[in-house]
């Protein structure tokens, strides 16, 4: 089999989806611009020109925000080793990667559940409870109580446990009484956020003094995750390394282990799994535990390392974006990592776009939603791109 060819055909739909979504996004930028609309009737050509210009400005801001400004990069190159200039040049791309770290974790987490045929929508809640676990570990063991490496390991373990416990509840309910995981996990997302709100507004041990805002203490005072770049002001820490290792581990688990074989069988054909004597209930619980643990690990590392604070909104839109990422990435660890990086680029690029043009960051959510819609309807996506170029042979009717 031609592996490169097979790879290319797998990437075709996702790549086209992103491309078409960006194109439609551009049309929206053009036709929602008040100035363009105002001139559309009196001076259609000028208006369109203006609109295309606006879209170009927006997308170039998006690209600069995602990858970096060529000019700044040029200056950094010219300067040789000027740390300040290099930090400025690399910050956009580094921040894009930082934005992708939680997406990788939760994307991998929900992928394990999806592979088992469980629609775990609870990534956000499991991520949040992982963040709670990580925060507690940092507050208890950090700040010199235990040596720094041990504190970091405990942060990760508490994160794993927090997420796993939160996923165990819906897993157990589904396996034992058949409760729909879609409903239970969504509800547990809300409970997790409210639980954090309770912790950071009522518990003195956790809440940031002088206890006015509902946020935790600054966690960087307790545990500091080591950065991995030589420039200190760039905040990329070991979280990304753990994320990539997790991807490798998930891939190995799913495709090499007997347990992974059982989970994949259950996901593809539950009747055949029963026929083969695999325990369906234990598959569900195992998958949910692993799924929640991975999301929880991400929550702990991001709360302690990147955000450095626990707050009720810690998960943001990570839960739902991660579902999209899992589906776009074909629930394959490599696909999830690649898609999460693309979404990270879009997210960080979008924030610069919002600053430099007046286009709101919601535009990016719109584009993300379009990407998902196109991936969900591959025929449509291929149709849109194919039709203008390829003429279908007309039926011969005489």
């Amino acid at each position, binding site marked *: 089999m031609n592996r490169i060819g097979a790879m290319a055909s797998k990437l075709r739909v996702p790549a086209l989806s992103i491309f078409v979504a960006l194109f439609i996004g551009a049309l929206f930028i053009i036709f929602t611009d008040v100035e363009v609309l105002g001139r559309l009737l009196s001076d259609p050509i000028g208006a369109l020109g203006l609109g295309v210009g606006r879209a170009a400005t927006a997308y170039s801001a998006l690209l600069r925000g995602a990858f970096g400004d060529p000019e700044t990069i040029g200056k950094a190159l010219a300067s040789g080793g000027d740390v300040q200039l290099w930090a400025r040049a690399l910050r956009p791309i580094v921040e894009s990667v930082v934005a992708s770290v939680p997406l990788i974790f939760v994307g991998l987490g929900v992928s394990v559940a999806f592979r088992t045929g469980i629609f775990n929508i609870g990534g956000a809640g499991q991520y949040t409870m992982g963040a709670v676990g990580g925060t507690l570990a940092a507050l208890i063991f950090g700040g010199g109580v235990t040596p720094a490496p041990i504190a970091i390991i405990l942060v990760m373990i508490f994160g794993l446990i927090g997420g796993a416990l939160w996923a165990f509840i819906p897993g157990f309910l589904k396996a034992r009484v058949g409760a729909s995981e879609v409903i239970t996990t969504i509800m547990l997302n809300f409970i997790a956020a409210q639980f954090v709100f309770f912790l950071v507004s009522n518990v003195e041990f956790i809440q940031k003094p002088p206890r006015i805002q509902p946020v935790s203490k600054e966690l960087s005072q307790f545990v500091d995750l080591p950065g991995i770049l030589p420039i200190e002001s760039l905040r990329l820490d070991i979280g990304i390394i753990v994320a990539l290792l997790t991807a490798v581990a998930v891939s190995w688990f799913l495709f090499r282990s007997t347990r992974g074989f059982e989970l994949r*069988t259950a996901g593809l054909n539950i*009747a*055949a799994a029963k*026929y083969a*004597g695999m325990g369906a209930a234990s598959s569900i619980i195992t998958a949910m535990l692993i799924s929640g643990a991975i999301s929880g690990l991400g929550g702990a590392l991001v709360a302690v390392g990147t955000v450095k604070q626990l707050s009720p909104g810690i998960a943001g839109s990570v839960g739902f974006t991660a579902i999209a990422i899992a589906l776009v990435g074909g629930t394959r660890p490599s696909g999830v990592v690649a898609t999460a990086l693309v979404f990270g680029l879009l997210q960080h690029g979008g924030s610069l776009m919002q600053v430099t043009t007046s286009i709101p960051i919601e535009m990016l959510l719109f584009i993300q939603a379009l990407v998902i819609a196109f991936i969900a309807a591959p025929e449509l996506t291929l149709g849109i791109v194919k039709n203008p170029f390829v003429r279908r042979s007309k039926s011969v009717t005489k």
Partner: protein
Amino acid sequence: MKLELQGITKQFPGVLANDRISISVDKGQVLGLLGENGAGKTTLMNILSGLYRPDSGTIRIDGTERTFRDPAQAIDAGIGMVHQHFMLVPVFDVTESVVLGNEPTKGPLGSFDRATARAQVVELSKKHGLHVDPDAKIESLPVGVRQRVEILKALYRKSEILVLDEPSAVLTPQETEELFEIIRGLAKSGTAVIFITHKLNEVIAVADKITVLRRGAVAGDTTPAKATAASLAEMMVGREVQLTVSRSKSKVLEPILEVNEMSVLNDAGDLAVDRATFVVRSGEILAVAGVQGNGQTELVEALTGLRPIDSGSVTLESKPLPAGSPRDIASAGVAHIPEDRNRDGMVKGMTIAENYILNTYHLPQYSKRGLLDRKAISAATEKAVKDFDVRTPSIDTDIASLSGGNQQKVIVAREFSRNVRLVIAAQPTRGLDVGSIEYIHRRIVEQRDSGAAVLIVSTELDEVLALGDRVAVMYEGRIVGILDAKDATRERVGLLMGGIVA
């Protein structure tokens, strides 16, 4: 009306489903369309009913060319389809079912005019000799009567060309005979009938002319007067076919499976198997006949651990069956070829190798310390693929891309890869081509000859009669009779299948 299809060609990615097919059927004529699964029958009918559009070729009705953009246009043109799987709403009554989509209405709000509808249905069923109670609920009707409702539906829509897709698959021999009467009556009153089947005897019995399809093309046209079952089979397969399974006399030894007063409930909690008692011995094949849905599925599921046994006892080689655990039953020496291979027997989206180890992956030969031993799995699968003549580009091919026959060979290879004392095969050849049927039958008989006990469940009477050393018949959950092969004539078994115990 006269229907002609000329030069119909339909290409799907990688498959030429229909290759310049031409068929015609005249007013008052019955055309038997014969072909194996995958010969292109269904594609052709989907083109005729407006679901697909042909790449080339023409459809003519009474000489005028027609194109159908959707099924509604085909119905308007007078083409009525009776599908293999009925499209009926269980809680509707017969009248409602027949007029659904074309209801007579009354009043300014267009409310349903039940009285008129009922009168129309009664008149229609009287005219065509299709006896049904217009007020009976669909769910209370036996399959044969539901089929009549489907035919009435087509006639109500003024179909003058009636297409019946594998209509006898769900009927007893006697019900099939009644269906043939109906078809003959319809033809007499001027309807053109296309009767699709893979059963040779049926086309000979009911058709006026026969068209045989093979691999998407017309293999030949003939008439029942000129054709024999053997000549049709040869046309259908493209080579000479042995219609009977050759096998030696069975050397029956000790009992392997003893089922005593076993009762099993279905999903709804109703009694599906009612105190079944039988024995299968080493070296014999016990074939269970019966119309689909008379408890055979539940019987097999109970014996293979997929469904709890409600009462009664089952022993395997004198030890109690480890009921409820498919894995323990398999380890005890039971091979299970499941009734629905798509649902239970294989995992589409997984490779042939993964399907081959589906229920043995946990054994030390294929995994160590929770890790799959890919080398051992590949080696074993390569050997099985060769031994069982599975046609596939590689063992890493998705099993979904294989033909039904090759998929079934993978399943049989997997089940026979263990030490087998009892074979439980449910519908082992459903939907397979003749070549694969021969092959699978031969393999099953081999198991018998090497001393295994074999329990075959089939709704195909031909298969039951060809393979069974003894024939048991199930009707409404009960074993209504067990006959020796020499006493198991088509008529006797057929009567038992209809619940008539002589």
